[in-house]
């Protein structure tokens, strides 16, 4: 009889140890995740970005009285760094990206901040307005992908809109009230990053392995590179775009 109890205790201990090993093992692999960093540059001089005439809405033109607004098709910084390029792993088959911060798309001074908002498939994002003039937020995806267009008003003081997208797609966003307002929701699968004003980026939380990193620029198109990420290490992928 006692023997039986003993074996039960031993068995449950074994189960416990196995569980612990499993959990710890997962943690170990999380700590072993690497990252992909790099810089995206524009080859040659940046194309001239046309100024925007906001005179049809005095609120908007006043907001840009000292700092004229320009189109944001190509935004370059120091040393030809190209901003607003979305980097993602186009052959990602792992789980959805776990992000701590909700991506926010803000309507500020009658422009979109950021101009390009990257997000994972199914990830919740927010649309806010900081302006004292009415906007409407009108993404125009291809309904055949499973992403369905919608159109919501954002008068001054409107509560944020929270949404998500079902399928990977680079979605045009516009405001019908201010036709110059134009941005993108870049919906991708898995980890992603967007270049800052110097063209640099870091994709975090990438499990060790070989991947294809793809860079998407709204006008110049896409480029891809193979990289291998080692456990806990940082892989590099630099890109150079030519303005079209």
């Amino acid at each position, binding site marked *: 009889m006692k023997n039986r109890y003993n074996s039960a205790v031993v068995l449950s201990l074994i189960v416990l140890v196995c569980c612990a090993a499993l959990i710890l093992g997962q943690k170990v692999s999380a700590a072993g995740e690497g990252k992909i960093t790099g810089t995206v540059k524009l080859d040659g001089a940046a194309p001239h970005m046309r100024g925007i005439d906001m005179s049809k809405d005095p609120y908007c033109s006043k907001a840009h009285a000292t700092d004229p607004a320009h189109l944001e098709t190509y935004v370059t910084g120091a040393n030809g760094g190209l901003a607003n390029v979305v980097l993602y792993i186009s052959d990602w088959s792992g789980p959805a990206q776990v992000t701590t911060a909700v991506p926010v798309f803000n309507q500020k001074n009658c422009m979109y901040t950021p101009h390009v908002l990257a997000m994972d498939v199914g990830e919740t994002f927010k649309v806010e307005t900081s302006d004292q003039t009415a906007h409407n937020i009108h993404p125009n995806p291809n*309904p055949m992908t499973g992403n369905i267009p919608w159109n919501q008003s954002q008068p001054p003081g409107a509560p944020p809109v929270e949404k998500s997208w079902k399928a990977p797609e680079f979605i045009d966003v516009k405001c019908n009230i201010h036709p110059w307002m134009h941005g993108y929701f870049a919906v991708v699968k898995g980890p992603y990053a967007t270049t800052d004003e110097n063209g640099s980026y870091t994709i975090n939380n990438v499990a060790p392995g070989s991947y294809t990193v793809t860079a998407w620029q709204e006008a110049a198109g896409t480029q891809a590179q193979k990289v291998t990420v080692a456990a806990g290490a940082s892989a590099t992928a630099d890109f150079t775009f030519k303005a079209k």
Partner: protein
Amino acid sequence: MRRTLGMWSLLLGAAAVLALPSASWAQLTTVDIQTRIGAESHIGNITGHAKDAALPYRRYCVGCHGPLGDGNGENAPYMQPPMYQQPRDFQLGIFKCRSTPTGTLPTDQDLFDAITRGFDRSNMPQWNTLSKQERADLVAWVKHFSPRWANEKPGTPITIPPEPEVTPERIKAGRDVFARVQCWKCHGVQGMANGPSASTLTDDLGRPIAAFNFTDGSRPKCGDTDQDIYRIFMTGLDGTPMPSFADNIKPDEAWDLVFYLRTFMAQKSREKEIAKGLGLKPVDPNAPVAQQ
């Protein structure tokens, strides 16, 4: 020489026509559409069947809506936006007149009502001469063009509270809503479709589109009852620049706005009389929001 020139210009012309960008996302084939021929609609106690609508569609609808339901019927090129909007692309499954929130499918009843009512200021007539069964069958037929109905359910219709009585206070409150959410940006301070943004409006396919002019006697495209007007701005007209205001106008305020919008309209109404008595002035877009 002359002959070759003629041939060249003919060829060039043909090439130009072929190169015209298609104003549509969809590229469904007859084979793909045919897989959904079992589509049904439910209108009250009537069940509509897509398979029974093939003949009426060919007889009444195909000329504008096209054999693939993409709105490229042989009459479509003669409808010139912004005066006349071209027919819907049924393959996209995106509809203006819905009782459901923006970004969701309309109900069968919404489609049935659209066919029955037709669209003012467009080439779509009323089809109330067709029997209810025929119209229900056509609703199922419209649905079978789009894969959306196979993957999604229609949205939940918005709740419209009972209509309150029209009072001067409500009309004044409606004017405040009109100023706060800035309907005038497109519709103009007097509802004449001459707001600062009216001239640059385009629909989802990039075609010019006009804001609704409340004052010229025409009826709103999605119906002209008070409930219809309530529904139009609370659900938005998908595919057009008209957004949904559901997050920014409370149900009770929405009735105030309906009453205020009535004061613009050419048709006689109690709202118009009250507004005349009040001596209401149009909102002033240049004043701070609180003093408009």
